[in-house]
């Protein structure tokens, strides 16, 4: 009788472990292969994006400077850049200028690479952000971004904002965290990227162009080539532009659906 008891208990524990293992396996496989896209689409109130008119861009690089001034990015980190290129198959030799922030893709390839989920796409507005306190600095996401939109903070400074100068004490408003730049502390040793200046959003997650709470590059653009807005709102400036013009998105073939469009 007693023996039987022991066996049944064993069996019971065995069954329990099996159920537990099955549960764990389902959880892990859901996490590993499940689609984030459908989950975010339902909750996503805003889908912020940009429309950049390459025909208007004059290549002044004011956006690059405005971004640096707004976010206080150090030497070697450029959340936005301006490319100039003379296209081979164009009849004129007028260069094409193009500014390139982070594209905040609908299916970002960088996010799934992060071993600690330190970078993620915000559910409410689709902006891809980095949690500086969690990022371990492995730079895997940088290899995974097909647009080189991610930058590692090596800890270098412009001479004017080097350590122990008054400028160094001015914190960066990024993520409304106002971190002071000190050696060995985040964001040094972290991966950094364009955030569409989310520190300028209000409590409801909205920007306001009139009040100046608008991404620095779009606000500054001298040629009015950078348009910013909510792609979920059919009457937003960006959606009207996309309805009325031909546009391209870069590296469409990768299927990651960037939220930055170029008018050509």
């Amino acid at each position, binding site marked *: 009788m007693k023996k039987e008891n022991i066996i049944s208990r064993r069996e019971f524990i065995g069954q329990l472990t099996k159920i537990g293992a099955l549960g764990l396996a389902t959880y892990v496989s859901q996490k590993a292969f499940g689609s984030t896209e459908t989950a975010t689409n339902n909750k996503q109130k805003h889908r912020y994006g940009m429309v950049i008119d390459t025909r208007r861009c004059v290549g002044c690089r004011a956006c690059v400077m405005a971004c640096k001034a707004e976010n206080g990015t150090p030497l070697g980190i450029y959340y936005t850049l301006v490319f100039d290129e003379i296209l081979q198959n164009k009849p004129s030799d007028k260069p094409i200028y193009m500014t390139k922030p982070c594209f905040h893709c609908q299916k970002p390839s960088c996010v799934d690479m992060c071993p600690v989920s330190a970078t993620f796409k915000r559910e409410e507005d689709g902006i891809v952000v980095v949690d500086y306190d969690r990022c*371990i600095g492995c730079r895997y996401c940088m290899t995974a971004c097909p647009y080189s939109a991610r930058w590692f903070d090596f800890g270098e400074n412009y001479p004017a904002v080097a350590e122990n100068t008054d400028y160094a004490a001015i914190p960066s408003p990024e993520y409304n965290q106002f971190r002071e730049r000190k050696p060995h502390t985040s964001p040094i040793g972290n991966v950094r990227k364009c955030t569409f200046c989310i520190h300028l959003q209000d409590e409801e997650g909205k920007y306001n162009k009139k009040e100046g709470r608008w991404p620095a590059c779009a606000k500054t653009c001298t040629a009015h080539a950078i348009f910013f807005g909510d792609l979920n709102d059919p009457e937003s400036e960006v959606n009207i532009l996309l309805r009325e013009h031909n546009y391209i998105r870069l590296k469409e073939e990768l299927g990651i659906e960037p939220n930055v469009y170029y008018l050509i």
Partner: protein
Amino acid sequence: MKTTILKKAFWILAILLILIGIYGWYIRLFFGHTEANYGNIITWGLWVAAYIYFSGLSAGSFLVSSMVYVFNDTKFERIGKLSVFTALVTLLMALLSIWADLGHMNRVWYVMVYPNFKSPMAWMIYLYSTYMLLLFCEIYFLLRYDFVVGKKQANFKGRICKILSLGSNDTSEKSRMRDKKIVKILATVGIPMVILFSGGVGTLFGVVSARPHWHSGLFPILFLISALVSGVALVTLVSAIFQDGFTKNKSTVVELGKFVLFLLLIDVLFQISEFLIAYRGGIPGHIAGWDIVTSGQYAWVFWGWQGVIGTLIPILLLILPTRKSPVWVALAGLLIAAGIFGLRLNIVIPGLAVEEIHGLTSAIFNHRVDLHYFPSISEWLLTFGIIGFGMFLFGLGEYFLPKSEEVTEEH
């Protein structure tokens, strides 16, 4: 007499490398990444290449030991313990290399508390951690008896054995049978683990669709095979120089030579197939990386280091009559193991050294936005330090591990 000179030279070299490595670690720990030469275009450099190289060595060495403890291969019986030891030392070297590469070294444990199961890198870290524990357990049960016996010595060695035996005193036949059983289980579990993690490193690179040079279904297999080649080659070399193996392990070394030749030829086959498909397809993005490998500034790494030194000469040494001489076979092992490091560099750097958007590196002038990469002095020194640390551990192993005659006696 000759061996004592060689031994002294080995120890001096190991300590020298550790000393210069300390400078590299000092720079890394106190100045972060400022002195490193990788940047925002080539985001991974020498340390990542060293990491995949050392981890490959570990996988290959473990395979040799599994042939003994799982498949009861008598040819390699003499070097079973040695290859588990090699696997452990090279794994520690790999983990040190990748640890130095992290932006925040103190946050390495975050992978355990904030897991992301979608990230191949997270899976790699779980696999490595489990594999490291497995190796520690396996090596303990392999050597437990030797430590218990060694305890009886009154000297320093005896005291070390006492610590390493972890309080075990059992020398009975029964306990030795139990050890053997445990080792067999651990070695069996280790095989899929080794395949998963060395293929997994290839997956880590292969899934990156943004980098056409890496994004190939062959990558995990290629990583696995070259890991095995380099590991077996290293074991060949180590069994020739470890504990007078030169005279005692003669037949084992020659056997290992045959095995490594077989693996090397498969590896060459896979690499040629990768190369041919890329070039015949001719998609600019796909061949951009290969163009850097074959005709870029560091093309000599591919043709000279990897091709001639790491592949051609060893193949010749292993098929000509020199294949019967342990000296030449050991040399071939050294060359192959060194050549695979060139292969690792040629995977990491050319894959990244391509502008993702044309004009990226001319849009701004900054040394972090550059397609050219050569490791900085501090990067080299830190890596040399890790090699010195590995040699140091090997030296200790040479001294403390039971001599191979005792191993044969046992069976």
